[in-house]
C-alpha cells in the first residue's frame, strides 16, 4: 500500500463527538439586529380589523333589516343608536362617531390588505396566469376578494360618508328616500353583493389562516361561507326592496320625516 493511512499520528483517542454544524457566516441570527415586530402586529391588525368590520356588517344587516318587521321597529332602532334611551334625547352625532370609527377601520383594513395586492403589472399578470392555470377554488376566491375589496373601498366609503355627514337622516322615510329618490339604490345593490361576498370569504379565510379548525374542516367551512353570503345577500335584497318600495310610495313626500304613530297621536292632541 503506497499510502496506507496512519492514524497513530492522531491525537489520543477520545470519545467520538458528533461534529456540530457550523453556522453560516452570514445570516446568523445573533449577529444581526433583531427583526422588527411590526410585520406580526400588522398581520394581526389586518385580521382583527377585518373581523371587526365583519361583525359590524352582521350587526348592521340586522338593524337595517328591521324595516322588514315594521317601519316603527326600524325607527326605534335608529333612535336607539342616537342614544335617546340613555341621554333622554337623540344625538345623531353618535351615529357620526360610529360611522367615523367604521370608516377609519375600513381605511386601516384597506391599507393593510393593499399590501397583498399585486404591486405592478408584472405581479398582476403573474397572478392572473397562475389563477387561470391552476383552477383552484381558494386561489380564485382570493381574486374575487381582491376585487370586491377594491370596490368596497369606494362604495363603502361613500355610504359611510353619507352616514357621517347626515347622521340624522336615518329613519324609515329618510332612508327610503335616500335609496329611491336620492337614486342610491344601484350603489347599495353593488355594495350589498360586494360586502357580503367579501365578508364571507374574509371570515372563511380568517378561520383558515389562523387555523382555528383543523385542516379536515375546509369543506364545511366553505359550506358555511356560502350559507353566510347567501343568507345576508337574500336578507339584504329583501331589505333593499323594502326601502325601494317604501321610497317609491313616499317619493311624492320625499324629505318628510317619519313620525311614529304614538308620537303622531301625541302631537295631534
Amino acid at each position: 500500500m503506497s499510502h496506507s493511512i496512519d492514524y497513530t499520528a492522531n491525537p489520543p483517542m477520545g470519545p467520538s463527538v458528533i461534529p456540530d454544524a457550523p453556522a453560516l457566516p452570514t445570516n446568523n441570527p445573533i449577529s444581526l439586529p433583531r427583526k422588527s415586530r411590526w410585520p406580526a402586529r400588522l398581520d394581526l391588525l389586518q385580521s382583527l380589523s377585518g373581523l371587526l368590520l365583519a361583525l359590524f356588517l352582521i350587526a348592521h344587516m340586522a338593524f337595517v333589516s328591521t324595516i322588514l318587521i315594521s317601519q316603527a321597529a326600524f325607527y326605534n332602532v335608529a333612535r336607539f343608536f342616537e342614544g335617546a334611551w340613555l341621554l333622554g334625547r337623540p344625538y345623531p352625532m353618535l351615529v357620526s362617531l360610529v360611522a367615523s370609527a367604521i370608516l377609519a377601520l375600513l381605511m386601516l383594513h384597506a391599507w393593510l390588505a393593499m399590501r397583498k395586492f399585486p404591486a405592478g403589472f408584472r405581479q398582476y399578470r403573474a397572478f392572473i396566469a397562475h389563477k387561470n392555470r391552476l383552477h383552484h377554488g381558494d386561489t380564485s376566491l382570493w381574486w374575487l376578494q381582491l376585487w370586491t375589496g377594491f370596490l368596497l373601498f369606494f362604495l363603502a366609503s361613500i355610504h359611510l360618508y353619507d352616514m357621517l355627514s347626515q347622521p340624522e337622516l336615518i329613519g324609515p322615510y329618510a332612508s327610503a328616500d335616500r335609496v329611491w329618490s336620492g337614486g342610491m339604490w344601484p350603489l347599495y345593490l353593488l355594495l350589498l353583493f360586494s360586502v357580503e361576498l367579501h365578508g364571507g370569504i374574509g371570515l372563511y379565510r380568517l378561520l383558515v389562516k389562523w387555523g382555528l379548525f383543523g385542516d379536515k374542516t375546509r369543506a364545511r367551512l366553505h359550506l358555511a361561507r356560502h350559507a353566510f353570503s347567501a343568507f345576508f345577500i337574500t336578507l339584504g335584497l329583501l331589505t333593499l326592496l323594502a326601502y325601494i318600495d317604501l321610497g317609491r310610495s313616499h317619493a311624492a313626500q320625499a324629505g318628510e320625516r317619519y313620525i311614529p304613530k304614538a308620537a303622531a297621536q301625541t302631537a295631534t292632541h
Partner: protein
Amino acid sequence: MQIIHSDVLIIGGGLAGLRAGLAARKRGQEVIILSLVPPKRSHSAAAQGGMQASLGNSARGRGDNEDVHFEDTVRGSDWGNDQLVARMFAHTAPKAVRELAAWGVPWNRVQAGDHTAIIDGQPVTINEATAAHGLITARDFGGTKKWRTCYVSDGTGHAMLYAVSDQSIAAGIPVHERMEAVSLIHDGTRCHGAIVRNLMTGKLIAYVARATCIATGGFGRIYQSTTNAVINEGIGAAIALDTGVVPLANMEAVQFHPTAIFPAGILVTEGCRGDGGLLRDVDGHRFMPDYEPEKKELASRDVVSRRMEAHIKSGKGVRNRFGEHLWLDITLLGEQHINGKLREVKEICQHFLGIDPAHQWIPVRPAQHYSMGGIRTRPDGAAYGLDGLFSCGEAACWDLHGFNRLGGNSVAETVVSGMIVGEAMAEFCNSSAGELNVSTALIRDCWHRAADEFTTIAQSSGPENASHLMHEMQQTMSQKVGIVRHGPVLQSAVDTLKSLILRSRKIGLRRSQPGANPELVLAWRIRKMLKLALCVAEGALQRTESRGAHFREDYPQRNDAEWLKRTLAYWPDPQQTQPTLSYETLDVLTMELPPGWRGYGARDAIEHPDTGRRQAEVDVLRQQFASADRSTRQAALLDFSQQLPCHLRGDNERLGDAT
C-alpha cells in the same frame, strides 16, 4: 478550459458522498461535491425499511452487539466479504445511527410496555422495558438474528438523506448539481480529479483535486427490471474502469430484491416482511416455510428471491397480462400499522397499483436491486490502482457485502463508509502523498480526450440507435444474467453484449442541438454501461460456483475450495470488447468466522482446505480468552480497530451495560 480546484472532490451527492464530504470538511479540507441531481433527490432517499446498527434497545434486539451484527453480515455475504471491513462496519454503525439522531433523524422510538407484533403469521405480545422507553427502536429484517434495523417509518433513507444533506449545507459544502463526471484525470498511477460535463449546458469542466472519491451508487439500470432510480447507471464505476488500472470487483454479485411490485419494479420494503408480511402463491398458500422452515420469509434476500423464482417455475405463479408474479400479503398487519410504519408502501400501492395494501395483496416479483460489486477499495476506501482515488457506498466494493447484502446494511454502509473514507481522504490530503503535482498538459489532455469522445458521437451518422441498444442490453441482462444463471446462457449473454459494444461504436444521433442534449448523453452512457454489463456477465460466466446472489444452476454448490476469491475486472484497452479478469484470494486463515453454513439456504458447500485449521485456531483462541472481555477476545481473533479513525474506536454503550 475551466479548471476548478479543491482538496477533495466527491463524485456523487447521495448519502455516502455527502457523509464522506462532511468528514473531510470537518478535518479542514475544501470539499466540492458533484451530483447528477440535487442531492436530496439521490437514490439514497428510496431506502425505505431501515438501517442496521446493533443498539439492542428493543426487546427483540436485547443481547445484540457488534459480534452478532458481524456474524449476520458475514453469513449473509456467504463468506464472500472482507471480514475486517465487516468488523469496522459493525463497530461504527451504532455511532452512525446516534450521530444521525443528533442531526435530527426522527428514528422511531421504543414505547415501553406491551405491544403486539406479527411474527410468523401470529400476533405475539412483546414487552418493552421501561428503561428503553424513548430510545431508538428496531424492526426485524431478513438474515438477522436480532431485531436490528433502526427505522423512520418506511422513509428511513429519506430522513437520513435530508439530515445529512442539511448538515452539508450547514457546513457550507458546495454541491455542484447536474454535473456528470465523464472521466478521471490521471497519469496511470495518480488520480488528480475528473473531467465533468455540465448536464444543463453540455460544457466540460476540469475539476482538479488532491483526493477524488467516487460515490455514485449502483448500476441497476443495466437491467430491465430494477428497483433502482433512472440515474443508477454506474457511470462512476465505469469511468474508474476506463482508467484501465482500477479494477471493479465482484461485479457478478448482483442482488435481486424479493418484493418489487410487478411489473413496475418499484420497491416495497423488506420491512413489510420484517413486520410480519407473508409471501403467498396463486392458491393463497404461504410457500416460504416449505423451502426455508427456519427463517421463512426472512431468509436473506438472495435465498428468498431464488425460492420465489423457483416457486413460480413450479407453476405456482399468478398470471396476469404482464407475466407471472406472487403475492405479498401485509393485510394481517392491520390498517393502523400500515398507515404509520409502512406509509410509503401504501402510497406506492395506491398510486401505481390502485390497491389498498391494508385490504389487498400486493403483486410482487424479484427485481434487480443492489450491486455488491464496484470499485475495489482497501478498508480505508482507497481504490486499487490509482493513488488519490477513493470510493465509498454502493459504487465501491469495500467488500462489506460479499455475494449478498443484508437488508438495512447498505444504507448503513453509506454513512459508515462515508465517515471512514472521508477521514481517510483528509489524512491523505494532509500527507505528502496528497500533494498535488499535476501538469496543465495532463489536464488538457484528459479534457480533450473527453471532449473528443462527445464530439465523435455528436458528429457520427452511424446507423445504430442508442435507445435500442439500451433496451437490448437491459433485456439481455434481465433474461440471461438474472437470479438463476446457467453457463451456456451466460455465454450467449456475453456474446450478445460484445456485439452490442461493437454496435455502440456506430451510434448516430437523430438530432443535433446545443445545450444539454439528452440524446448525446444516452449515446455516451450506453457505451459505458455496456462495459459494466460485460463485467457482470463475464464475471458470472467464469465463476463456476454458487455463492450468495450468484446462483449457477450448473454449479449449484458454494465452492470454497476454488472460489473463495474476489473477481477483479479490468478494462486496460478501450478497444477490448470484454474485461480482463483476475482474482484476489480471500484468506481463510485470517477470518474471524471461518466458512460454514449460513443458517438458511443450501447446506452443501465444498469446504476450503484451510477452513478446518482456522476453525480449530479460532476455537482455541476463544477458549484462551474465555474470561477476557468481549472486545479483547474479539481483538485476538481479528484486530480491526487500528483501521478506524481514532475518534471512531470507542466502545458503544448499550442499555444494561455496567458503566
